[in-house]
């Protein structure tokens, strides 16, 4: 790193407009992240054309602020009302909402804030010091590697369907079947649309999340009726104590950060997969993760990984001009507006702008800490609203959220149908998380498997002759083996 360049770049800190736009960006990110149906991606798409008259630093302050806080803020409704604000926070809701049900919403929120910021900072380090090396690593991933990587991701099913592996697997298959609906990504033909062209779009992840998490919960509340479970009085958590708790789990933070960074580097992935895999990994190490009581580790793993994607997804963008996730895809336009073509020459020719990006990212993560910890005290007040008022409100938000994803009223109908179906299945003992995981990973495995076989002329041996693919396959088998062995030794009576 060039220190004089860094010093020059740091001059942007003297500009009030940079601070102003950073704060505006962070605040907008909170809104877009927390509102179900709206995501950081949508926020950045709307904000990008507004940056026409901006200088580079102000433009990046607004957009990166929105990016980082948007990825975090989806955890707020995930924890409080079991409705992830964005797909990347779905894994957070499992343990986060379980904690809230025990009166520990404040603790879960603290963990999400601190975990997100830590994930963000870890990813900035990687972006600052290892960007060119890592982007050449990312370029070794082809469809072959993505396909086996997706299969590895599916091993998380075992971890997130505690209790019954069979119903977990069934759920994942159901999710994958739902993922088949729409236009086949390889052949371009329609599938499972039953002649209904509204289904050509496929079942988008956001409406599915709303249906399987929030709507099923609403049905469950309605069934419980008058005697439904009111949440207990919420305890306050002390942020410093939570910091200590996080630091004692330093290994989990590093591991989840590494998972988020690794996945952020890979073009075409994103926070959703990162948070699920980190969560699954945490669950393998800690039987309390995913249990009825919820565990601090589950929230932490998911949120660290989720935000560790941010800096890492900028690596392929700034070194190759290739986006690491959907947000960075839109950022390309923001760079063009500034007259900058991102690509292999960006860091070399625009070193100072690169430093500005690093500084702004660090500030954005600080802003998450300040704003997140500052406002969290009032957030659990939401839970004091009596259920008979809160639940209808949630339904309205869900419907609005589902509508806003594609601006289609069909999606509102769909969350109702999927939500009811999900509720029935849940009553029959099927966990919802594997369904969502199947919907996330199924299309990735399918598309890449078929692409890989197309370019390699139907030669299945590529999956074992390419070293990275072979390594991932071995790890996958190892994980399955260990899981099986552990479950056998657990079920054996202790004599």
């Amino acid at each position, binding site marked *: 790193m060039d220190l004089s360049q860094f010093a020059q770049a740091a001059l942007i800190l003297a500009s009030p407009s940079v601070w102003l736009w950073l704060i505006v960006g962070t605040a907008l990110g909170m809104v877009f992240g927390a509102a179900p149906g709206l995501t950081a991606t949508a926020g950045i798409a709307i904000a990008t054309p507004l940056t026409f008259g901006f200088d580079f630093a102000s433009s990046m302050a607004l957009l990166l602020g929105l990016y980082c806080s948007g990825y975090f803020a989806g955890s707020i409704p995930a924890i409080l009302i079991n409705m992830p604000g964005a797909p990347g926070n779905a894994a957070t809701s499992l343990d986060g909402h379980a904690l809230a049900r025990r009166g520990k919403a404040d603790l879960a929120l603290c963990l999400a804030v601190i975990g997100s910021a830590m994930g963000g900072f870890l990813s900035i380090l990687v972006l600052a010091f290892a960007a060119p090396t890592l982007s050449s690593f990312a370029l070794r991933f*082809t469809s072959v590697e993505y396909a086996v990587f997706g299969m590895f991701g599916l091993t998380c099913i075992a971890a997130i369907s505690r209790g019954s592996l069979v119903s977990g697997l069934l759920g994942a298959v159901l999710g994958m079947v739902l993922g088949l609906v729409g236009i086949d990504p390889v052949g371009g033909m329609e599938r499972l649309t039953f002649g209904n062209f509204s289904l050509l779009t496929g079942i988008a992840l956001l409406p599915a999340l709303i249906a399987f998490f929030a709507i099923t919960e609403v049905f469950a509340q309605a069934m419980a009726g008058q005697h439904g479970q009111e949440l207990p009085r919420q305890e306050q958590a002390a942020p410093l104590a939570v910091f200590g708790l996080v630091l004692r789990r330093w290994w989990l933070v590093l591991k989840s950060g590494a998972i988020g960074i690794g996945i952020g580097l890979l073009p075409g992935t994103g926070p959703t997969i990162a948070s699920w895999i980190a969560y699954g990994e945490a669950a393998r190490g800690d039987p309390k993760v995913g249990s009825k009581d919820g565990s601090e580790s589950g929230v932490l793993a998911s949120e660290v990984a989720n935000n560790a994607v941010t800096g890492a997804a900028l690596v392929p963008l700034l070194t190759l*001009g290739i986006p690491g996730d959907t947000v960075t895809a839109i950022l390309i336009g923001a760079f063009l507006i500034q007259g900058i073509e991102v690509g292999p020459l960006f860091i070399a020719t625009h070193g100072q702008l690169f430093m500005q990006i690093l500084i702004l990212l660090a500030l954005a993560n600080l802003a998450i800490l300040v704003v997140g910890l500052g406002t969290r005290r009032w957030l659990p007040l939401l839970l004091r609203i009596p259920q008979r008022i809160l639940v209808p409100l949630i339904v309205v938000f869900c419907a609005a959220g589902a509508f806003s994803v594609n601006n289609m009223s069909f999606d509102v109908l769909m969350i109702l149908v999927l939500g009811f179906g999900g509720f029935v299945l849940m009553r029959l003992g099927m966990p919802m998380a594997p369904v969502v995981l199947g919907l996330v990973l199924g299309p990735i495995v399918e598309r890449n498997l078929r692409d890989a076989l197309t370019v390699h002329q139907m030669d299945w041996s590529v999956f074992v002759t390419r070293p990275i693919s072979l390594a991932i396959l071995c790890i996958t088998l190892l994980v399955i083996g260990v899981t099986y062995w552990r479950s056998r030794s657990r079920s054996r009576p202790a004599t």
Partner: protein
Amino acid sequence: MRFWKTLVAAGLLAASGSVHAQEYPSGPVRIIVPFEAGDAIDGTARLLADVMANEFGSPVIVQNIPGGGGAAGTAEALRSPADGQTLLMASTGALTARPILSTSGYQTSDFKPIANLVDQPIGLAVAASSPYQTLGELVEAAKAGTLSYSTPAPGSTQHVSMADFASKNGLTLNHVGGQGGRGAITKALTGEVDFAFVGASNYIGLADGGQLRVLAVATPERLPFLSDAPTFKEAGFDFNASVWFGLVVPQQTPEGPTEALRATVEKVAQSDKATELYEKLNFEPNYMAADAFQTRIDESVEQNRRILTELGLVK
């Protein structure tokens, strides 16, 4: 701030169910973009919306309805009231190829043209490490064996036109979709496919950085932003291909609003501001009035039908 204006306008739009149009526009105008925010076509629409709003003195809102290769948004535009308040930003593939490929809820003839706005020329590129130095070498290799290539999606203009090129020149090619232009380029960079065939402006950064070689652009003349890249014609192939984006409205839209829109778009699409913004994003401004645009749409349909029939992809 424009952001808030847009929000208010979106609210107004939602509130103003049916509009009885005497003068046009009688309220906020909405442009449906049938792709994700951030795509090239989305940029085109947002830039134009800005200039149009100034001209109309009423808000112009861009609404993204992605999915189904552009089919979802296109079908939605057809379902909206045909009063001229809803426009569709049509792209080649969604308007003229999708109805041939699958059930889509609309036919190309369900829409009538306002104007073509921009073209995105298509180019062919290989990774720096690729053995092919010229288009000629690549073509010879694809005659001798099988090569693979990537485009944004199956059924896209890029896919259909490259398949046409292959069948005319006797090449054997395997196609994979890249989930968008940049994704398709990634597949070429990683060496997964032998070449990419996407919008040429996507190549600029990587070509300058020496990671990609643009072997040919499918345009009559060389492109100003990729001046080192020869045209297909220079390499001895008579082949042009580009993606176009233009505005259309449902066929039932009354004459009044249609003519008003055509007049306004004619003015704003050729304004200095629009031209400058389009060039900044490396689009090729190519304003075409309604009649010329209709001819172009008909040609695309005919070409797509012929090629997709050859490929066995007709529904």
